[in-house]
């Protein structure tokens, strides 16, 4: 039953990827530039929680500390960097480059403090397994699924049921209109960055809990998540989450028919072709 | 006799909005025709359809007896039709002269191979084009501002530069989208004088215009558009005298 195992494995990984995609979707749909440093915020969450755990905090409190720190970091990044750049009329290219710089600062800062070694949380309960649907799943993997679904539902609730979420969607659909109708897009941007950054801390802890912490690990995950965000339709939280699941499952199942070294290449290859045929182009404004 | 510009049965639907509905009209050669109508009447959509920026769902455009259907904006300029934009779309980081140069249709040195392998030929052609560009700028009265960056020009100067830029293409039919909006006083008078001068030189003008005073002063013909449909056409006096049209124009929707 290789295919079933791969399918389940894909779904679990898809939930982790989905959390990153949902968090990035909130940010990208609102601010519309490529916040590459999100990958570094993802890394930050894992390391902060690791430190909290090593200082004797219980697991839930360590995660909470990570979430709060990431949220504050996200707000600070928006307020101190992106907003300033925006006020100076910076193009998106300039913001992208600044974001790449920030990424380098954060990742290397983490590497300088924690070394580049693969760190482990050292929580034995994480590796205990249960048989579910014919496949053995670890507690960490089950937590990933639970948090994945909760994050998705939480993000949907936030976007559609809360005042801030509604303001966020208004700003996303028409920034100019939002400006003149006193929706205060700048405040909305800060709030959305904080929420997206806080959210990405959850996979930022759960994935390393399973696979170990590395300072430079976030970029490939963010890029795959970004594909899900764009292919799923920017602004659509469901689209991002579902596409993340689809990509993860397909990457796993592709092993049935070909060697694994090509799965990343093919994922991005398909995406490039997709972008050629489903453009958001020149004259649609 | 075929009309200079003949627009027949244009329809265009954007989602639930019928932007153009069986829209037909003609423009006579050498005349100034004003396109009027309330906001959202489809005036800019007509411009887009004529100049190839928009493919209508149905309908035809003919210019001097030749069909323009399915042609790209670029090809349509080569037929002798050029347009301006309501929001100007000047190249803000280029000088006024370079904006005009960009409109010139002499393509020497506009490809990389010519630029690299025939540098002297390119330089000579460029010098000639710059002289021509200066002449065009002089024509609209901007010769003193040739080296200024567009972002440093006044709004009125920018409006004039828009016209200069399409004059540089050598087009015979000029489609001007609100050339006087936002202008008053001397600047307004200057643009109006330029439009008459262009007419005197043999150009044909199709102008989107909101200011009824301007329409009265410059238009030979007026086309009244409403909900994407040509509601009326005639002389300025006839259109302005029609109380029904005035009601639509000033009183909002009918």
């Amino acid at each position, binding site marked *: 039953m290789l295919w079933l195992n791969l399918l389940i494995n894909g779904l679990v990984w898809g939930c982790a990827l989905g959390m990153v995609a949902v968090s990035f979707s909130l940010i990208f749909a609102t601010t519309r530039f490529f916040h590459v440093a999100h990958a570094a915020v993802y890394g930050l969450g894992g390391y902060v929680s690791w430190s909290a755990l090593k200082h004797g905090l219980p697991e839930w409190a360590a995660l909470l500390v990570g979430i709060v720190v990431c949220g504050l970091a996200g707000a600070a990044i928006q307020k101190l960097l992106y907003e300033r750049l925006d006020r100076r009329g910076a193009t998106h290219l300039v913001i992208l480059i600044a974001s790449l710089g920030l990424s380098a600062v954060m990742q290397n800062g983490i590497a300088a403090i924690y070394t580049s070694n693969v760190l482990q949380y050292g929580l034995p309960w994480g590796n205990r397994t249960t048989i579910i649907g014919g496949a053995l799943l670890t507690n960490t993997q089950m937590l990933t699924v639970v948090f994945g679904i909760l994050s998705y539902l939480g993000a949907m609730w936030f976007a559609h049921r809360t005042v801030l979420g509604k303001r966020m969607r208004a700003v996303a659909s028409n920034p100019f209109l939002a400006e003149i109708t006193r929706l205060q897009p700048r405040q909305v941007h800060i709030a959305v960055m904080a929420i997206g950054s806080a959210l990405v801390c959850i996979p930022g802890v759960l994935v390393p809990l399973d696979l170990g912490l590395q300072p430079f690990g976030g970029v490939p995950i963010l890029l795959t998540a970004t594909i899900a965000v764009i292919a799923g339709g920017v602004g659509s939280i469901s689209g991002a989450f579902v596409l993340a699941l689809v990509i993860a499952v397909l990457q796993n199942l592709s092993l049935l028919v070909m060697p694994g070294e090509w799965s990343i290449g093919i994922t991005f290859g398909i*995406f490039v072709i997709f972008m050629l045929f489903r453009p958001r182009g020149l004259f649609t404004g | 006799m075929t009309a200079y510009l003949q627009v027949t049965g244009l329809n265009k639907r954007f989602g639930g909005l019928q932007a153009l509905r069986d829209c037909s009209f003609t423009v006579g050669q050498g005349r100034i025709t004003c396109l009027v109508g309330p906001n959202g009447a489809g005036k800019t959509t007509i411009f887009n359809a004529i100049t190839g920026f928009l493919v209508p769902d149905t309908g035809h455009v003919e210019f001097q007896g030749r069909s323009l259907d399915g042609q790209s904006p670029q090809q349509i300029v080569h037929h002798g039709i050029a347009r301006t934009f309501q929001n100007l779309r000047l190249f803000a980081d*280029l000088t006024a002269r370079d904006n005009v140069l960009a409109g010139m249709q002499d393509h020497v040195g506009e490809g990389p191979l010519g630029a690299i392998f025939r540098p002297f030929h390119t330089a000579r052609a460029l010098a000639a084009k710059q002289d021509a560009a200066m002449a065009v700028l002089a024509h609209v009265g901007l010769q003193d501002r040739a080296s200024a960056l567009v972002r440093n020009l006044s709004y009125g100067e920018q409006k004039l530069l828009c016209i200069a830029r399409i004059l540089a293409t050598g087009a015979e039919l000029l489609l001007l989208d609100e050339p006087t909006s936002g202008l008053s006083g001397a600047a307004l008078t200057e643009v109006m004088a330029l439009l008459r001068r262009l007419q005197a030189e043999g150009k044909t003008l199709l102008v989107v215009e909101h200011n009824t005073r301007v329409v009265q002063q410059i238009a030979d013909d007026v086309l009244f558009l409403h909900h994407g449909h040509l509601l009326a056409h005639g002389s300025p006096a006839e259109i302005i005298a029609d109380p029904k049209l005035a009601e639509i124009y000033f009183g909002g929707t009918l």
Partner: protein
Amino acid sequence: MDFLTTYIVLAEIYVLLGLSTNLLVGIVGIFSVSQAAVFGVGAYLTAFLLMHTALPFPVAVLLAAAFCVGLNILVTLPSLRVSGDYFVVTSFGIQLLATAVFTNWTGGTGGANGLPGVPAPLILGHEFTEPTEFIALTTIGMALGCLCFWLMMRAPFGALLRAIREDELAVAALGKSVLGAKVSAAALAGAFAGSAGGLYATFLSFVDPSSFDLDASIFLLTMVVVGGARTLAGSVLGPFVLLALPQILALIDIPTSIAAAARQLIYGLLLIVFMLFRPQGLLGEKL
């Protein structure tokens, strides 16, 4: 002084890459983060031709450059259909796809092992092995590249490209072919990157995927940004400054265990500071 000449040779190769990136990103405004992929194809192709055929060095480099012309047009095509922020992501995708091919196509690229033993250039019976000799080749390459760039920028072609960056629609309304100009620019950028690849492969005598990954593409972008976008001077200055930067940062005394990470951190900080306070770079125009 092989250290100095090696530095100059590498910087000159990177100037060609800087011109390539500047042309696309700075001048036409195409957000490409996959220029290292095209550079890599030029390097691998030159290495392959020199190792497996009897073609002389100049022919091999020309063939590689010609291939990169086609390739760069192909990878830039999505930018004609997709707007800026979406294209960045597409471009990241192209870069990762290229890295996957470089790493996994063992038959063509040597895979992750790379291709060692690329023969040194042999021109008119003389072998260019030492940096002191090789510098002649890269200097000629760089000079030709700069000349082309300068000629283009002063010709109407340059003005057309700048106009496209500002407003494609307006350019189309003036009867100009936006597609044609973009394709031409992409072709030239491909030729620059491809020939840089040929020089790079023969200078190091070794190619492997690590030189052409996402970090390399970002490094190219940084060079253009720090040097200055849209100017010839910026494209030349950027590579020289950025290649010297690690050596300058090495002078700062930091405990060895964190020194390297701290230097990378400072480098990131520089990017942010430039974007905040000097987006035009050292010698460029505002991005």
